């Protein structure tokens, strides 16, 4: 099933005097894996958080198909949030609740508030959550407190929670920035899996060029709130990288000589 495209029109966010996001226009077709790169403070997080409406845009608009996301309020806004799942750098699980309940939290928007407050999830919902956990090799952690799982596990639990939302797209804000390389790879593989197998668009903020190159169909470079690069990984030349980061990629990787240099 082909879902609607996501469109940003002249999206802007000001914090006092600073322009965190400065007139970003962008169309993301359904099913794309989009990597957003740039230095800290380039506006990547703010951009993603505006799409989920965790942060209000100062100007411009967000559209998903025929829906003007920027105009949504109340129930419709919560429905939108359920359909664009957010994945956070620090996982944002509830550490004292077990893994299963953390995943079930993803379903809250589609259930009656009263039965949710009482924690009355149906057997079918529990089975669905367990099936998602099993898909990412997490079944045996289901009854463990989320806080006791490892970082890599926690981020995969967060991905399971996202899937439990039955989302139409996934926003991942630096999903691997607090993970070691091995776990980072497992989490990125999981994100690519939901992109390929479930046909979900994934918008992913990333620190490392290499990760973006390896996993994304399309890369967006941001600098000082503006898009300075938009193209396939192959078009991301060393000059372009210097333009985005303000330093050359070689300097970027300086210490152990040519840990990777430029492909």
């Amino acid at each position: 099933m082909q879902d609607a495209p996501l469109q940003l029109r002249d999206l802007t966010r000001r914090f006092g005097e600073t322009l965190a996001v400065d007139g970003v226009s962008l169309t993301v077709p359904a099913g794309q894996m989009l990597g957003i790169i740039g230095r800290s403070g380039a506006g990547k997080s703010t951009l993603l958080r505006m799409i989920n409406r965790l942060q209000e845009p100062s100007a411009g608009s967000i559209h998903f198909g025929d829906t003007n996301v920027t105009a949504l309020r109340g129930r419709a806004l919560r429905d939108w949030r359920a359909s664009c799942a957010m994945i956070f750098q620090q996982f944002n699980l509830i550490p004292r609740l077990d893994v299963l309940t953390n995943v079930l939290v993803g379903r809250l928007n589609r259930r009656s508030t009263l039965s949710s407050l009482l924690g009355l999830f149906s057997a079918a919902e529990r089975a669905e959550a367990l099936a998602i956990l099993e898909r990412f090799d997490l079944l045996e952690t289901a009854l463990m407190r989320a806080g006791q799982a490892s970082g890599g596990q926690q981020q995969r639990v967060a991905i399971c929670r996202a899937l439990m939302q039955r989302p139409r797209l996934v926003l991942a804000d630096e999903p691997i920035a607090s993970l070691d390389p091995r776990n980072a790879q497992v989490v990125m593989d999981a994100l690519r899996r939901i992109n390929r197998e479930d046909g979900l668009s994934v918008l992913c903020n990333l620190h490392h060029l290499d990760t973006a190159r390896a996993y994304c169909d399309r890369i967006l470079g941001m600098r000082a709130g503006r898009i300075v690069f938009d193209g396939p990984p192959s078009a991301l030349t060393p000059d372009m990288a210097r333009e985005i980061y303000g330093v050359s990629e070689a300097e970027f990787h300086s210490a152990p000589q040519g840990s990777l240099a430029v492909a």
Partner: protein
Amino acid sequence: MSADVARYRALMPRAFGPSQAGRALRWLGAAAFVLWLATLLWWFDASPARLWNGLDKLGVILRQMVPPSPGEHWDAILQGLAESVAMAFLGSTLAVLVAFPLGFLGANNVVINALAHFSIRRVFDLGRGMDSLIWALAFVRAVGLGPLAGVLAIAAAEIAVLAKLFAEAIENADARQTEAVTAVGGRRILAIRFGLLPQVFPVMLAQYLYQIESNTRSASILGVVGAGGIGLQIAERIRVRYWDEVAFIILLILATVALIDTLSAWVRRRLIGG
């Protein structure tokens, strides 16, 4: 889907709720709790009729409170109130000064010896066992009637409370920060000064400010037993049933506490930020 439910239920039964025995235990626990509540209510003869009659008399008092009136002794009321605030301030400050070192002694990440930690904590427990009102009765005998007895009563009652709260704040502090100071070669007292104190200072300050506010309310009781403050004024007026003046004093105390709260919020913002 139902096949899935059956499969996962077999695979991981606890994911679908507590076991039979667990469920029974929960119900049993809940029943015992409710029974306990009911027994206590029965013991104190809390019949609906009694409560209803009590409500009725309370209504009479409330009606007599309106409109509140200052009566003829403005000066006595204001002096009592000022005394109460001063007592709370002095008592809390004294308590914090003593509780500060005690808090460190009572924290198991500062005093690592388990026996010492256990004994210090039990001493705190003993101190907390006595309410400020009991202390006030003792100090009135010791230093005579008046606000000084109140100050000492507040300090004595709060030292153990604050020491326990401080000790807990210190125990909950992040060990990585002290580790960093140790790692640069600082001695232990410096690790506490630079790694621990900055973390617990906001908690201590917040507690101190809260104690001033809370003890202003306590101080309004202490007067009843002769330890100075606004309490004496209230007690006198209740005895002669001048409920309108009692209401006035209560409103005045509320306003004072609100004022202290506002001031302490400002101090907190200035010293801690946020």
